[in-house]
């Protein structure tokens, strides 16, 4: 049993720990979004959720033993002198995949914007209900029906 578990960990968790980390983070965030009563706590959950996804994407772009996807000065000069880069000069194993970074830049921006808007709306809710607890807000709304 122990042996099996160790084998499982070795095969599925250690080499793929990035996915485990993101899934656990995501579960925390989602749980907060669904179950928390306080609106701000929901938003914190949302932030965690989105961060988890960003983590996931960025981890896709990682290559072992590669650097940032920016050409170094020497390489750049070399290419400028040659006029055109060739695959000898640029070894693609040496550079991390740039696409996930770009995508996540977008996702971060979207996340920030959503969060900002959500905070603004929760401020408005606080302004008119004087509370941020969902059940208390619903209590206030119950007798009136419409307003």
């Amino acid at each position, binding site marked *: 049993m122990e042996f099996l578990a160790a084998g499982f960990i070795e095969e*599925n968790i250690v*080499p*793929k*720990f*990035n*996915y*485990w980390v993101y*899934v*656990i983070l*995501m*579960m925390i965030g*989602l*749980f907060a979004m*669904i*179950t928390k009563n306080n609106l701000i706590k929901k938003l914190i959950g949302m932030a965690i959720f989105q961060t988890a996804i960003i983590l996931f994407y960025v*981890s*896709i*772009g*990682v*290559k*072992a*033993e*590669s650097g*940032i*996807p*920016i*050409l*170094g000065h020497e*390489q*750049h000069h070399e*290419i400028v002198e040659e006029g*055109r*880069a060739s*695959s000898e000069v*640029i070894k*693609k*194993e040496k*550079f991390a*995949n*740039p*696409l*996930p*970074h*770009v995508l996540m*830049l*977008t996702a971060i*921006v*979207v996340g*920030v*914007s*959503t969060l*900002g*808007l959500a*905070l*603004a*709306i929760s*401020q*408005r809710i606080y*302004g008119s209900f004087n509370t941020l607890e969902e059940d208390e807000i619903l209590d206030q709304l119950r007798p009136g029906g419409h307003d």
Partner: protein
Amino acid sequence: MKLFGFIAVIIVGALLLAATGDFPAWGDAGSPASQGQVSSFYIEQTINETKVPNMVTAVLADFRGYDTMFETVVIFIAGIGIIAVLRTFGDQASKAPDGPEADNDSGDLIVRTTCHMVVPLIQLFALYVIAHGHHSPGGGFQGGVMLGASYILFALACGLPAAKRRMGERRAIIIAAAGIIIYAGWGVACLLLGGNFLDYTSLDPILPGDEQMARSHSMLVVEIGVAFTVTAIMFAIYSNLSTRGRLEKGL
């Protein structure tokens, strides 16, 4: 509710983890995403096509420039959305003290003095980040956030009214809109010169250098546009959130 949420979360988590079985391991250089044609193209050809060493910037501002334009629009929406939701126009707002004396009634002298010294440095560095995005990590978003942060810092130290005189609400909105107008307008310029939308090579006739350089220059232009929008909206979000939309004296 808690139990239901817990079960739902566990199911989703299990679903997501179940898929990792056939995912590449951490850092696997041979994974389809890393090995794929698109990624290889970006790494190998960026320098040839755009003369920009920073592949992230090139992908962001050129290959996927259309995406980035909408990204800027998202920020813009967040900004005017927050104003639309939160801002209360009317008498209370205008009655707030707005004279020069408001400048002095907030904040400590040391804090204000330090702030006056630091803000220009931050702004200078922000401009560097924007301009140097082609060669090092950086670009319009990063630089714009720094610029916005410098205004926020100023508002924190010297009070919102003081900051408002330098970046009023109206001005912030105009700058934000101008940023996207620069970005999308640049794309339309390409369109008018006969290329597709955002096809920077068609701007070659009016820009120095060859077609690839035209791409490189154009990236700088759109990054500047992004920076405009981000700067203004960062500050607008701060000022609205911190005063519940009344834009009086802030925190």
